[in-house]
């Protein structure tokens, strides 16, 4: 018997996938060759040993897959992005229409406003410096004119008031005077004269007393002065006399010395010559 099973047949037998005819043929062969059967059983042992390798437990994660093949055109990324942008612009336009936003940038000021513009007066844009100066000067001139007019008016009113007041006072005085009687006027004048006379008298009396006192003082002072002067003159004369007397005595002594000298040395010649 030349039958020798190949590896495929042996493996098919090991896994029970060999047909009945082939299996019987192989079993007959194993009876003839028990070593081959033992060898195959060892492979069976390997299977048994390897069967202890356990399965790992795992939970299937959710798998999200996009339908790339059947995706309609309007779902493609490009179209969706475009539609998104268009929708955003439309939304902004609608919101703009409804809210009426106004974005303004002028002179470093960014202003975003919604709804109707407020009625508060706003400065007209574009005013130049010259125009502003002109407006200021015009305003100042008007202000000055107004102040001057007001002042003139006030002065006029003040003068009018004063005049009215004085005239009223004078009128009242005149009226008072006109109402006074002749007797009263005379009495008043005489009284006034008496007062003046008394005043003059007092003045002259006071003046005469002062002058008398002054003259007396002046005479006393003058006599004192004369006395003092005389005293000084006498002292001066005395001093002069004393001086003269002293000089005279000195002259007298010198003369005596000379005479004495002449007398004591009458015949001697001077040897010095």
């Amino acid at each position, binding site marked *: 018997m030349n039958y020798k099973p190949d590896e495929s047949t042996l*493996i098919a037998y090991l896994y029970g996938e060999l047909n009945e005819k082939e299996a019987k043929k192989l079993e007959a062969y194993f009876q003839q060759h028990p070593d081959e059967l033992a060898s195959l059983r060892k492979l069976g042992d390997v299977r048994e040993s*390897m069967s202890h*390798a356990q399965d790992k437990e*795992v939970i299937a994660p959710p798998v999200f897959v996009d339908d790339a093949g059947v995706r309609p055109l309007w779902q493609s990324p490009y179209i969706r992005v475009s539609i998104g942008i268009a929708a955003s612009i439309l939304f902004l336009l609608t919101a703009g229409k409804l809210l009426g936003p106004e974005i303004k940038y002028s002179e470093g000021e960014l202003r975003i406003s919604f709804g109707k513009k407020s009625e508060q007066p706003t400065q007209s844009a574009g005013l130049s410096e010259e125009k502003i100066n002109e407006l200021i000067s015009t305003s100042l001139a008007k202000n000055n004119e107004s102040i001057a007019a007001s002042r003139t008016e006030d002065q006029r009113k003040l003068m009018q008031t004063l005049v009215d007041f004085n005239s009223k006072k004078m009128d009242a005085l005149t009226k008072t005077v006109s109402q006074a009687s002749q007797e009263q006027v005379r009495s008043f004048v005489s009284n006034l004269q008496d007062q003046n006379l008394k005043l003059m008298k007092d003045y002259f009396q006071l003046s005469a007393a002062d002058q008398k006192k002054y003259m007396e003082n002046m005479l006393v002072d003058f006599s004192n002065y004369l006395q003092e002067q005389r005293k000084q003159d006498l002292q001066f004369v005395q001093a002069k006399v004393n001086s003269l007397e002293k000089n005279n005595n000195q002259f007298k002594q010198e003369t005596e010395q000379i005479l004495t000298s002449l007398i004591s040395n009458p015949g001697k010649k001077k040897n010095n010559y």
Partner: protein
Amino acid sequence: MAETLLDIAMMHSDSLIARAREGDKNAQGKLVQLWYKRIYNFSYKFFFDHDLAMEVSQKTFISMHKNLVGLQEVTRFKSWLYTIAVNYCREEARKKKASRSFSLHDLNPGEGEESYRWEESHHRNENPERQLRHSELSDLLQACLMELSHEQREVVIMKEYEGLKFREIAEALNISENTVKSRMYYGLDGLKKILEQKKITKETIGYEL
């Protein structure tokens, strides 16, 4: 491998696939829920890396969603889905080979309670220590699996853990059934040698557990 309600639902999901193919979002979502764990675990066993497995799983289902309309036969959905997963696994493997990045866990996995696997092992109503031993054994076997070539690993995972028939694997990998069986044979033979090297046998596994 004991069949769960999920497995039964997966086996009888032809009408669901048909509805999903017609654009039923609800059906597509259910398909993801049904198949996510299988594709994740296939990718995880292929890379032994959670992040890469998540990446491949998400890409696989995104691709499934986009290309489900082009699926001709509903009955070939399973192999078709694994085809997508395998292609993404190969793509990620190429990227990984180019970048040569390592997980911090790979650099210092720790031992016992210091291992990051200790925290992962704490499931409710289970013995944490027993769960830790299972987890460590699973990682050890996974490490053995990683020593196989890509071609053998793909086939071994699909057959041994995903329960595909040789015909379905051949369809998924677009190779002949004989090639699949041959890769499977040499893959198991390679694993036998690797397990022997690491002194892992049925008996030692039974003792450990």
